[in-house]
C-alpha cells in the first residue's frame, strides 16, 4: 500500500482511475437522485420534505467520515512523514467542510417545516456546527503558514488534537442539551427506516462516497501539480541567477 506513497506512481495510478471513479459517481448519484427524489414515495407524515433526507443524511455521514479520513491521513503523515498523506489530508478538509455545510443547510431547510424553526439548539446540530468550525480552523491554519512542510505538520497536529476532542465535544453537547431540556426538541429518528426509504438512501450514500473519492483524487492531483510547478519555477530561478559559462567568459575577456 505504501507503494502509492510515491507521488509519481500515485499520479499514474490516479490518472488511470479517475475517469472510472468519476463515471461511477455520476451513475450512482444520478440513479439515487431519480430514485430518491422522484420514484420513492412521500412519507405519510412529513410528505415530500422527507426527500431532503436523501441529500442531508449522506452529507452528515460524509462530514464525519471526512474528519476521520483527515485525522487518519494526518496520523500517517506525522508518524511516517509521507508527503502524500499530507496532500490527502489537506485535500480532504474543504470537502469535509462542504459536506458539513451541506448537512447544516439541508437540516435547516428540513427543520423549518418540521420543527417550525430554521435552527434549534439540538445536541446533534450543535456538535455538527462545532465540527464545521474545526474544519475552518484546520483550513485557516494551512493557509496562514507559507512553509508547506511546517504547515502540514502543524495542521496534522491540529487534526489529531481535534480528533481526540471530537468525542469529548459530542459528549459535552449531549450533556448540555439534556440539562437544558426546557426548550424541548422532537426526536426525529423514527423507529426504523422503511426499506423504500432506506435503499435509495444507501445508494445516495455510496454516490456521495464516490463523489468524495473523485474530488479527492482531483484535488490531490492539482496539489501535486502545483508543488511540481513551484519546484520547477524555483529551479529555473536558481539557474537563471547562476552566470552561464558564456557570460562568465565574456566578462573575463
Amino acid at each position: 500500500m505504501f507503494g502509492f506513497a510515491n507521488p509519481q506512481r500515485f499520479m499514474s495510478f490516479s490518472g488511470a482511475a479517475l475517469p472510472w471513479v468519476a463515471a461511477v459517481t455520476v451513475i450512482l448519484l444520478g440513479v439515487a437522485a431519480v430514485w430518491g427524489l422522484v420514484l420513492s414515495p412521500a412519507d405519510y407524515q412529513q410528505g415530500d420534505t422527507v426527500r431532503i433526507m436523501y441529500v442531508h443524511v449522506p452529507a452528515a455521514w460524509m462530514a464525519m467520515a471526512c474528519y476521520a479520513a483527515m485525522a487518519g491521513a494526518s496520523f500517517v503523515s506525522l508518524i511516517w512523514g509521507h508527503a502524500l498523506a499530507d496532500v490527502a489530508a489537506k485535500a480532504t478538509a474543504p470537502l469535509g467542510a462542504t459536506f458539513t455545510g451541506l448537512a447544516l443547510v439541508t437540516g435547516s431547510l428540513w427543520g423549518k417545516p418540521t420543527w417550525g424553526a430554521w435552527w434549534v439548539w439540538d445536541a446533534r446540530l450543535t456538535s455538527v456546527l462545532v465540527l464545521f468550525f474545526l474544519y475552518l480552523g484546520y483550513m485557516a491554519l494551512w493557509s496562514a503558514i507559507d512553509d508547506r512542510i511546517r504547515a502540514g505538520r502543524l495542521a496534522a497536529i491540529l487534526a489529531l488534537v481535534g480528533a481526540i476532542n471530537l468525542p469529548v465535544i459530542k459528549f459535552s453537547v449531549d450533556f448540555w442539551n439534556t440539562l437544558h431540556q426546557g426548550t424541548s426538541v422532537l426526536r426525529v429518528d423514527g423507529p426504523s427506516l422503511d426499506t423504500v426509504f432506506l435503499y435509495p438512501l444507501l445508494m445516495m450514500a455510496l454516490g456521495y462516497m464516490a463523489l468524495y473519492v473523485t474530488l479527492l483524487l482531483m484535488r490531490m492531483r492539482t496539489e501535486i501539480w502545483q508543488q511540481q510547478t513551484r519546484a520547477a519555477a524555483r529551479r529555473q530561478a536558481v539557474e537563471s541567477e547562476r552566470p552561464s559559462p558564456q557570460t562568465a567568459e565574456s566578462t573575463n575577456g
Partner: protein
Amino acid sequence: MKALFAILARDMGLARQGWGLALGFFALFVTLMPLAVGPNLEVLRQLGPGMIWLGAALATLISLDRLYQADVEDGSVDQLLLSGMPLEVLVLGKVAAHWLTTILPLVIVAPLLGVMLNLEGQALWALAISLAVGTPALSFIGSIAAAMTAGQRRGGPLLSILVLPLFVPTLIFGAASAASSGEGLAFLGAVTLLSAAISPFASAAALRLHVS
C-alpha cells in the same frame, strides 16, 4: 523538576507587567453584559454564571497569543532545546505560570462580579469552584493553539479560530456546574485532566516546528 520550577519562576517574573490586561478585559466584559441585556436582576442572575464563564474563556483567549511568541522570536526556545531539556517541561512550566499569573486573578475576582450579577451564597461557591477546576483546561488547551501560531506574524485571529471550538467542552461543563451547583463538576475535572495529559505533548510538537 528543577527545570520546571526555573521556567515557572522566570515566567512569573516576566508576567509581572502583563497580567492586568486579561483581568481588565474580564471585568469589562462582565460590566458590558448588563448594558447589553438590561438591568433586570432576575435575568442577570440566570445569565450570570454562563456570562462569567464566557468572559473567562475570552479573557484566556486574548492572553494566549503572547504565551510562546516572545520565546520563539528571541530564540529562547532554541536555547532550551539545545540545553537538552524536554520541551514538554517548558510547556508545563509556561502553562502553570500563565494560569497562576493571568487566570487565577480572574478566578479570585469572579465571585465579586457574581455578586454584582445578583448571585448569592451557594451559587457564588459553585461559580468559584467551577472556575478553579475548569480554567486550567483553558490554559492547557490554549497552549496548543498558542504554540501553533507562535511563529506567525498575525497569529491572533487564527488563534481564536483554532482554540474556541476546542473550548466547547470546558465551557459547557464549567457553565453548567456553575449554574447548577456542581452538576457536571466531575466531567469538568475530567476535561482538565485530559487536556493536561495531551497539551504538553501537542504543544511541544508544535513548538519544535518553529525551531529552525
